[in-house]
């Protein structure tokens, strides 16, 4: 396997990076059994496989990907809940990858994490005050009880739990899902962290409450100027939340660019497919689909060369041999693909198809009607496509 040329990201000029990650690797050993371990056939899950990016001051970096792509592990590495197998992590210029003991504890005071499930991440036997005050006690912040109480009240107020005094004495079971997540946010903020990782903070919440939490996090970022890493499987939510988006696939970052760039102009074939699969809350916008074959390969045996090559519709011989580097294809737009910029990926906005002539029946396909597209590229009425069964031009089955 040819090593990625990962300097590209680190050398970016301009704004100061608060967190710089280079070639980060995390392997989890798989139990090989007695005989296996005797003969040295140890296997690893490549959870994070050479990831490089940086997080700038006051920025929200969104990380999207399917389950098992390593986005959560990356988040846990950044707050050092896991120890990386390799690579370097520079937090404000200081290497934090190998911190231990007191230094690690001090580092953990400066970075915080918000977890996915507010029903499980809060101790049911702690009141809200105890929950939020616990980090203060652990890190020995605040001299007197009154001082701590004031800090907790402030954190609760900034998480929009008002009046704070009323919430302090409550237990998690007395709170709704949205309120619990606000408590989790208050707990993360009470230490005034310099960096926060939010791992799917809204995916367990109901739609009507979700927007409130997202707006709260955006407001807090503006107020406290804390950089966030926002991890989510939902592209629409990530687009709303982040300045830049990193798309992950099998432990690697395949595309990294400003949010609107990723959404409007995806350059990696995987991003293209991912975006075309996202359902849109608009029945008029029936979009064409970019099919990719097969299922996600196992992260134990990552495919050679480009990890996406077995499923890629644009693959060529070189993809099987050489692992592409994450390179800057357009200003600020990094893509891990040999042919980025050469292949013409389709943008989600073009997928709300324009008018055209149906390749099956020859009649006009009106804008916004039910239609399908083929990679070749031709368009059809959805009904015609259903009858024909395969594309009449390139003979590909639907």
């Amino acid at each position, binding site marked *: 396997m040819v090593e990625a040329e990962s300097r590209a990201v680190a050398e970016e000029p301009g704004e100061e990076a608060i967190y710089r990650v280079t070639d980060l690797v995390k392997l989890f050993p798989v139990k090989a059994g007695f005989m296996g371990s005797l003969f040295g056939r140890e296997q690893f899950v490549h959870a994070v496989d050479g990831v490089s990016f940086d997080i700038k001051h006051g920025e929200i970096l969104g990380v999207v990907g*399917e*389950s098992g792509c390593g986005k959560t592990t990356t988040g846990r590495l950044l707050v050092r809940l896991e120890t990386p197998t390799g690579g370097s992590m520079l937090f404000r210029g200081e290497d934090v990858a190998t911190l231990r003991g007191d230094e690690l504890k001090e580092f953990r005071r400066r970075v915080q994490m918000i977890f996915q499930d507010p029903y499980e991440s809060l101790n049911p036997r702690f009141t809200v005050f105890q929950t939020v005050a616990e980090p203060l006690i652990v890190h020995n912040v605040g001299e007197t009880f009154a001082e701590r109480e004031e800090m907790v009240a402030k954190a609760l107020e900034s998480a929009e739990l008002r009046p704070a005094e009323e919430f302090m004495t409550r237990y998690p079971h007395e709170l*709704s*899902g*949205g*309120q619990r997540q606000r408590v989790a946010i208050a707990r993360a903020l009470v230490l005034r962290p310099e960096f926060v990782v939010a791992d799917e903070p809204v995916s367990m919440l*109901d*739609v*009507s*409450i*979700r*927007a*409130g*939490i*997202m*707006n709260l996090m955006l407001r807090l970022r503006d107020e406290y100027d804390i950089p966030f890493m926002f991890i989510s*499987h*939902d*592209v*629409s*939510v990530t*687009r*709303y939340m982040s300045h830049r988006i990193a798309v992950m696939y099998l432990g690697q970052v395949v595309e990294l660019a400003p*949010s*609107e760039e990723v*959404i409007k102009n995806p350059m990696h074939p995987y991003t293209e*497919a*991912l*975006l*075309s*699969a*996202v*359902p*849109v*809350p*608009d*029945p*008029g*916008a*029936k979009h064409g*689909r970019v099919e*990719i074959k097969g*299922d*996600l390969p196992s992260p134990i045996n990552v495919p050679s060369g480009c990890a996406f090559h077995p499923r890629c519709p644009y693959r060529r011989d070189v993809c099987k041999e050489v692992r592409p580097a994450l390179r800057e294809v357009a200003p600020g737009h990094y893509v891990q693909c040999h042919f980025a910029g050469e292949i013409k990926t389709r943008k*989600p*906005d073009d997928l*709300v198809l324009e008018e055209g002539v149906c390749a099956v029946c020859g009649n006009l396909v009106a804008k916004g009607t039910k239609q399908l597209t083929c990679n070749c590229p031709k368009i059809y009425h959805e009904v015609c496509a*259903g009858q024909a069964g395969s594309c009449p031009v390139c003979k590909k089955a639907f």
Partner: protein
Amino acid sequence: MRTTDPLLKVENLKVYFKILKGTVYAVDDVTFNLDRGQTMGLVGESGCGKTTTAYAITRLLPSNGRVVGGQIVFDGKIIVRADLPTELDEVLTKPDWANRLGGVLLREEREFAVFQAGGGQILEAEEEMEDEFAFYTELKGILAERGAVPDDEVRERLQRVTRQHLRGFGAGRRRRRREKEIEERIAAIRWSKVSMIFQSAMNAFNPVYRVGDQIEEALVTHYPDMTKEEARQRVLQLFDLVGIDRSRADGYPHEFSGGMRQRSMIAMALACNPQLLMADEPTTALDVIMQDRILAEIRDLQRELNIAMMIITHDISVVAEVGEKIGVMYAGKLVEYGNIREVFEKPANPYTIGLLSAFPSIKGPRRQLRSIPGSPPDLANPPPGCRFHPRCQFAQEVCKYVEPPFVQVAPDHGSLCHFAKEIYEGTLRGS
């Protein structure tokens, strides 16, 4: 005549749960139709009663759940109905009981007429009907005195008669006979005509049996004449249909990926050629790419086999992908119902508007999301008047006290709101 009828008619359905501290009004007055081959999406947040509605149709309600009002008609046959005394008991507790009672009795009258004409559409056995008829005449007698006697006293007397019928001599026997009748009717259509894809397809299969064998079992149960060989052939056919390799029929559930398990679940649901397929959150646990494939699969199969579908989900974008009709539920009420384009383009209910503006999209420019303030009510103790009023941006004085009517704003579009017309036409501005 029969074929132009809707396949499924849910009329004023009410499902309540008895719990220790009272009653949970899980589904309250829900009315909708579903035609043959049509797809409808039922959307709402968790706990809004969407799954309970589906469970009422297949009668899979937990033992403390009871249908206390309304009826469900499938293919011209009543499959679920609250009996008259139960329904009355409920109606009489409402402040506008007189109007409601009129409606219930009118329906009952129509049914008696059909029964006397020899129509077979009534749920009850013959003697049951006589019982109910006697009860009905007794009620009529009391009601006739209305005007001469104060309303409150009429109500009290009605209540007494109803209670006596519900708890008095022979009530248990009547109820058991009725339950048996209903169970028989449901058993005749469950899975063979109405089937269901359950919420957690991941766990819906028994882990110690082969997937193919489980589908075979469903077939043999519903077609006792079917031989093992025939069932096997049908299973392989079904695997082809949903796009799983035939050789996997001998696999165990843990050997399947999430998407494959979901497909096998669909295969099982299609085994007996149902006319109605209900999918409860069919794609929630799946990744986007797999979700997109399964939705496409569902859409193709539905078109190919002309099955009516009801998709229950919390994600309005999933409904936008596959639905023709949409029903929006909030706190046990169907708050908006109609053609999907209509509802998305011109929503006539404040809750739907809130839901639509809380949803991010990857299409078009990035827009500010608005959350709905507050959280959904406790259904054991719903707010009076309109259940949405504490969170509604348009709420006015009347919303706090009066239950809103279901307003038909367009031929194929209705909304449960006092100001549905104004919102639909855009003449009302929220705060």
